[in-house]
């Protein structure tokens, strides 16, 4: 068998290996909870009143000549929020999860129709995609109360692992983009210093965190190198799950640093990393071993590594 085909087979074997229904449930609860929070707090009603001249549509919103009307936005927001909450608690999950995603799509597209893609929400939407046709409501849901407990099976592995690939890919491609567009200069030049100075200069008050790094060339180079290392190295968590202990905190620290220094909010992206890459059932089992009253399916060894 050619090496390329063998690698593809191994990847396929990993993607479609059995999984714990509780881990898929944890991802469903986390992502739908995040979506509900975003839908409840997003600036959609305000965006709906944007003058048409300022509309910079993205994707399918190019079919419109202005933002959707406030009435349409209110209806979509209510539908998406209600469905996201229901999907979060796992009621009629096979229907409510796709409805939440589809109704949220135009709303989130509105936030990216100011001329710049809002990657914060994009990762959330993309990680939800593999859950749409899955049996995400088979455990830890109101749906599951009327059925026998779900056991470990292939139906519960691929949605979570696909979402993990998407998270790892998001960081890897961010790093790859830097290498392709800027090359080694992204780290070796004063790029990060100038980014941080420019960011501080556009804030109402000088930003002490940005200036602390920008005023120290060596530190700025280290920050740049660490950023690139975290982004390009992130897919290693798929190969060695233990490395999540390194890369997940590193990614969270990176987003926290960007938030402090540049006042850019990547909190949803950071939360998606936590939701998707942490094995929540294994963590719960570690602190609360399953009692006699509960009979969850066994957690595969690979999920616990």
């Amino acid at each position, binding site marked *: 068998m050619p090496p390329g085909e063998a690698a593809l087979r191994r990847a396929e074997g990993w993607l479609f290996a059995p999984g714990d229904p509780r881990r898929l449930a944890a991802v469903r609860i986390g992502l739908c909870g995040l979506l509900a929070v975003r839908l409840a707090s997003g600036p959609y009603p*305000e965006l709906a009143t944007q*003058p048409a001249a300022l509309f910079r549509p993205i994707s399918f919103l190019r079919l419109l000549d202005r933002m959707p009307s406030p009435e349409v936005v209110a209806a979509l927001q209510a539908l998406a929020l209600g469905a996201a909450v229901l999907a979060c608690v796992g009621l009629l999950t096979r229907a409510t999860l796709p409805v939440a995603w589809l109704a949220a799509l135009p709303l989130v597209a509105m936030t990216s129709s100011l001329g710049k893609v809002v990657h914060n929400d994009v990762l959330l939407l993309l990680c939800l995609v593999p859950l749409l046709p899955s049996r995400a409501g088979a455990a830890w849901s109101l749906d599951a109360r009327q059925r026998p407990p779900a056991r*470990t099976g292939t139906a519960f592995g691929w949605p979570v692992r696909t979402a993990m690939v998407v998270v790892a890919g998001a960081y890897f491609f961010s790093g790859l983009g830097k290498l*392709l*567009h800027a090359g080694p200069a992204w780290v070796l030049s004063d790029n990060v210093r*100038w980014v941080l100075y420019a960011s501080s200069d556009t804030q109402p008050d000088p930003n002490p965190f940005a200036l602390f790094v920008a005023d120290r060339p060596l530190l700025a180079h280290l920050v740049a190198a660490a950023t690139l290392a975290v982004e390009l190295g992130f897919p290693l968590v798929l190969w060695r799950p233990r490395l999540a202990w390194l890369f997940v905190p590193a990614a969270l620290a990176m987003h926290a640093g960007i938030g402090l220094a540049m006042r850019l909010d990547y909190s949803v992206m950071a939360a998606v990393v936590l939701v998707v890459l942490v094995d929540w059932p294994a963590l719960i089992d570690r602190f609360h071993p399953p009692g006699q009253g509960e009979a969850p399916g066994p957690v595969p060894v690979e999920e616990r590594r």
Partner: protein
Amino acid sequence: MEPRSSPSPPDQAPRWARWFVGAYLAVFVLCGVAGLEAWPLTGWRLFADARQARQPGLQAATVDADGRETPIPFRDLPAGFRGDVQVLKGFADLSPARQAAVCQAWAEEVRARGGEVAEIRIYATVTDVSDRVGDRAAPPTRTLRFTCRPRSADAAG
């Protein structure tokens, strides 16, 4: 160590799931590698360019009847007005009617907040962020590019 669960032969992912995941990851990877934007799929271009110390930009300011200039406070305006950087970048490529409509929208919002707007000026700026004056960059060099008045726009450059 827990025993590894071994699925029985029927417990295999269905063909549709394999196709679904394969197709989804293929387009996800294609967009990432090629930097394609097919929202919600994206090329993940986040701070991808290496910045230089001298940074070009654009600045919009209102001018009152006495000739006093005030930068438009986009951060304080509603969410729909915060794409100012991208709108300004593409301003030169807009039709005169669209330029006038953009200026009109900005002027109306500033007026709604009590500001006086006789005209709007758009400057091309170059800021040398390495040239520091205290905690701020030295003021940018500015070149007037456009002047708009309510319901009209005159290209000045």
